[in-house]
């Protein structure tokens, strides 16, 4: 065949085929347009209207704004740095001002790459298309979705000016780290307004929307920097900046704002507070309602708490020989509660929020160990009418349990010291005496006391509950000890003082309602013993660390050193500190020696309380009416001045059974004390009206 004819025939074929295909395409498109257009989302007028949502603001009790949620206020283009506008145009859509919603040549090229280059996908979305997608569509990649997006983009171009489109785009685009819109992004990443960002910062921000997760500068700073270079190069090639400017900017490294690192709140307290708000009002109100919340958080205390936990855990790492890159590391929790109201003033729910958002302060249930004993002592004092000067025997104890093996609790140090007053027993956390007390008092009474004080976790009805075998949360411990601190007045712990709507109208406020649930006299007696824990007992590290204010508390360490606690209080602030591993593992030094609450949690408590209370004058616990102090010999419970004739402990009928077998009679025998014998160890014991040292008659234990 004549080659010329072949060419002519081919051209003809191609032309008519093209014409047919185009015609069919137009027809098919028209059919699709008519069929899908009715269901496409409505475009708001003006476009920026639905971008506006009022922000929910959460404030500390001290007035600082802690976080804003969900709010978006579009800023006009005139209040956005032109560098940013240029950078966005250069990197996202340099022909923005020339096309009508779609860059046809780039789309054809992308189509070709997608169809004929397997494995490669090339984007060609214009700013208008991106806006359409972000406003109305999901991120699923389908041809139909793309087509719909295109139709909406055409409508946007028809209905809005280029300025309006750009304005909507820069105000709704996601930059990651919870920043939506350029103003928020500038605030989040650089702590300044979008109007004031530099060229380098503008280019840095403009690079992020391509993949906010991959380029999250707080996690992948190098990637974000590399992406910025791409932006700078495009700006240079688009003529927005000169080569010299590009070079200068590339030499700079934008400095990120330190205290905002993620889309997450970055705070265990705020997580807990937001959950509480959602429980009260639902998530719509919290994220879209524009409410103003005044929380109970004290930012100064929170900062001190975070620092104390951090330093305490670093010391613990060193004690345990855990290197900086070694995992797992022990966790630490601190909750501080205002004793006069129940307001949670500080909360640290773990070692590093960004590694684990799990809020151990309110969700982690752990055994409190001896930290539970104050509730036992209160119950025993109330039920048995005994006091800190009552003597019990520290000796091996075996308590039969119906349907279970005999309970044989041992002391932590595996040593037994014989008779001692209860104040001394709590001071040194003697388990055998606690076991005898729970046997005499009854489990129900101990559990009831703990529950009245604020323990909400289910407590098992077993004797060992008195030694802290049932799990509780640090928040519960702080709250329950706060009841003791306030003289027996219970305040429900809370996080929110006040909630207002956008117009300042109050929709919720917390009323401080104290409920008097404990006897003030007995409570004081228990508190007095807990003071001794800090002054002379298992928590005396508090004093060696320089915390000199009147304070009471109790250490708690479980048998396998899985949990180490210190919960304590001054008259105004109650703080619970827990340390331990998330998974079952004991806190042990490199040599294998276990680490107690007195060595891990108490130092954190001391450091926190020292700084937290620095601005307050020292104040001692109020002594209730009728309470008098008497000096008691630690081993006998009698006054040191009565030693000659009554060197013994006398117990009432209901107390005698608490003595160890074969021990009670020993207690009853008066012992002659030589005149030259050194003065025995004594403790001051608070007594209620009617209570006496060495009172009653001793009866043999059964």
């Amino acid at each position, binding site marked *: 065949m*004549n080659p*010329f*004819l072949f060419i*002519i025939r081919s051209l*003809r074929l191609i*032309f008519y085929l093209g*014409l047919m295909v*185009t015609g069919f395409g137009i027809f098919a498109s028209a059919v699709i*347009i008519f069929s899908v*257009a*009715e*269901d*496409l*989302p*409505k*475009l*708001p*007028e003006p476009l920026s209207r*639905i*971008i506006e*949502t*009022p922000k929910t603001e959460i404030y500390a009790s001290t007035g600082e704004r802690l976080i804003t949620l969900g709010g978006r206020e579009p800023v006009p283009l005139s209040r956005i740095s032109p560098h940013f506008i240029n950078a966005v145009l250069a990197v996202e859509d340099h022909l923005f001002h020339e*096309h*009508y*919603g*779609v860059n*046809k040549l780039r789309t054809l090229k992308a189509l070709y790459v997608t169809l004929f280059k397997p494995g490669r996908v090339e984007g060609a979305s214009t700013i208008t298309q991106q806006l359409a997608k*972000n*406003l*109305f*569509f*999901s991120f699923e990649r389908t041809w139909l979705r793309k087509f719909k997006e295109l*139709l*909406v983009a*055409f*409508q*946007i*171009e*028809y*209905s809005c000016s280029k300025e309006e489109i750009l304005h909507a785009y820069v105000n*709704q685009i996601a930059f990651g780290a919870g920043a939506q819109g350029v103003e928020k992004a500038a605030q989040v990443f650089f702590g300044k307004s979008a109007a004031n960002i530099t060229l380098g910062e503008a280019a840095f921000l403009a690079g992020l929307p391509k993949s906010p997760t991959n380029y999250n500068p707080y996690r992948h700073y190098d990637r974000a920097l590399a992406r910025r270079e791409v932006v700078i190069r495009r700006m240079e090639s688009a003529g927005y900046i000169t080569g010299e400017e590009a070079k200068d900017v590339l030499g700079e490294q934008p400095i990120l704002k330190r205290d905002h690192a993620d889309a997450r709140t970055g705070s265990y307290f705020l997580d807990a507070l937001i959950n509480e708000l959602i429980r009260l009002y*639902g*998530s*719509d*109100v919290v*994220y*879209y*309602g524009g409410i103003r919340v005044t929380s109970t958080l004290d930012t100064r205390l929170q900062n001190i708490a975070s620092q104390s936990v951090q330093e305490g855990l670093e010391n613990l790492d060193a004690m345990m020989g855990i290197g900086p890159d070694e995992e797992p590391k022990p966790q630490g929790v601190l909750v501080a509660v205002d004793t006069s*109201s129940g307001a949670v003033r500080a909360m640290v729910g773990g070692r590093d929020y960004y590694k684990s958002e799990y809020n151990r302060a309110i969700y982690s249930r752990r055994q409190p160990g001896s930290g539970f004993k104050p509730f036992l002592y209160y119950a025993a004092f109330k039920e048995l009418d005994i006091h800190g000067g009552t003597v019990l025997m520290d000796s091996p104890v075996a308590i039969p349990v119906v349907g279970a093996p005999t309970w044989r609790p041992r002391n932590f140090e595996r040593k037994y010291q014989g008779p001692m007053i209860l104040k001394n027993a709590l001071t040194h956390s003697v388990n055998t005496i606690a076991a005898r007390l729970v046997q005499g008092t009854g489990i129900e009474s101990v559990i009831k006391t703990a529950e009245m004080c604020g323990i909400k976790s289910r407590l098992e009805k077993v004797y060992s509950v008195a030694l802290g075998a049932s799990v509780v949360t640090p928040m519960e411990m702080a709250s329950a000890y706060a009841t003791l601190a306030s003289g027996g007045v219970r305040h429900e712990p809370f996080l929110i*003082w006040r909630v207002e*709507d956008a117009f300042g*109208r*109050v*929709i919720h*406020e*917390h*009323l*401080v*309602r*104290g409920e008097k649930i404990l006897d003030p006299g007995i409570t004081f007696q228990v508190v007095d013993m807990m003071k001794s824990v800090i002054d002379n007992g298992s928590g005396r590290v508090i004093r060696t660390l320089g915390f000199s204010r009147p304070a009471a508390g109790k250490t708690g360490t479980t048998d396998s050193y899985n949990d180490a606690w210190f919960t304590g209080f001054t008259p105004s602030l109650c703080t619970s500190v827990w340390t331990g591993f998330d998974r079952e593992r004991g806190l042990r030094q490199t040599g294998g020696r276990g680490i107690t609450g007195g060595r891990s949690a108490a130092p954190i408590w001391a450091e926190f309380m020292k700084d937290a209370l620095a601005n307050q004058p020292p104040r001692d616990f109020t002594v209730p009416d009728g309470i008098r102090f008497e000096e008691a010999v630690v081993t006998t419970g009698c006054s040191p001045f009565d030693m000659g004739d009554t060197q013994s402990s006398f117990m009432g009928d209901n107390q005698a059974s608490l003595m160890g077998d074969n021990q009670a009679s020993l207690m009853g025998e008066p012992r002659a004390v030589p005149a030259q014998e050194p003065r025995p160890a004594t403790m001051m014991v608070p007594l209620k009206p009617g209570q006496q040292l060495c009172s009653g008659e001793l009866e043999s234990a059964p």
Partner: protein
Amino acid sequence: MTPWYEPTSSGEWLKRSLSLINMAIVTIAAAILISELRFDWCEYVIGRYMASINSTRPETGAIWKAGEQSSKAHTLLRNIIEERRDAARYAQEASSFSELASGILPGQWANLDKEHFKRLYLAMPPAVASEIISPARLIWLFGGDALHDGKGLQRIFCEGKVSGLEIFFLNAENRVLHHISLDKSGLENIERGEAPLVGTLEGIPEFQGRIYPAHTFFNALFKLPGETLPDIITTPETLLNLQGEIIKAGIWNEASSGFIKLGFEIRENRKNMVLFIRAREWAVWRLSKVLSGERYQDEEWMPSGEAFPEGTSLLPGDKISRGMTINSAPLQLRPFNVALPGENR
């Protein structure tokens, strides 16, 4: 007509290709293509069509959803505020405590103006008002900052409950200085007076041992100084408005907030019923003394609130002050909130 045939030469091909119709088709196609590339008319037409049907399209998609959530949130908040406003209006317009309790629904709350509270309180007879809150407590609450370590009463907060109303007396730090619970039905009883009980005084155990014939009772009553009488018959209208004759009177065995209940057995149309009024405790004490035949001595009275701790029970024969013996039946001095709605201590 010559049937179509394929050109046989290149010239023919060229000639036919450049025919008018072909040139027109190519030109039109090119014009359409170029004009579209240049003027984007296709996008414009589609955009215009889309805009024309915009109002009929649904408000769907991510941003509308956010808008919807925002709208839901505002509706919810508006409802809360409106409920609060309603409750506040009820609180300010209420002319009695029972109206107040009925107006503030469960879950609603409102601040009650201090002066308004006082007006509601003072509008009631003292015997009735003291059941809401004792006058001494109220004076203590309204007594200013000095009585409360510089943090005295700031506002009164009412919260609706299913059973009635909780009233909180708050200081500037939102701390509850005092709190009272008002039970709706109990409140109506307090304000309207206790409903008459069909039956006799003997049928009510609390009067046992302190029931007197009417004439004995009134004889004893008139032996008291005249100024004492209003403190015994505090709400005379309760008795005056009823038909029938008073046949017996009795003294309740409990005192609360400085008042003791008196019962009057009325016979009307051969039916017996008991009417209740509240009398001042100290006046009843004097009356009891006269009824028991002892000589009345004015200085012997000792207010129970000071002489005995709350909850003290006096058994028959117990001396409650110098030489004084209560008749024969137990007289229990119990905290106000044990048996009646009122103060929560």
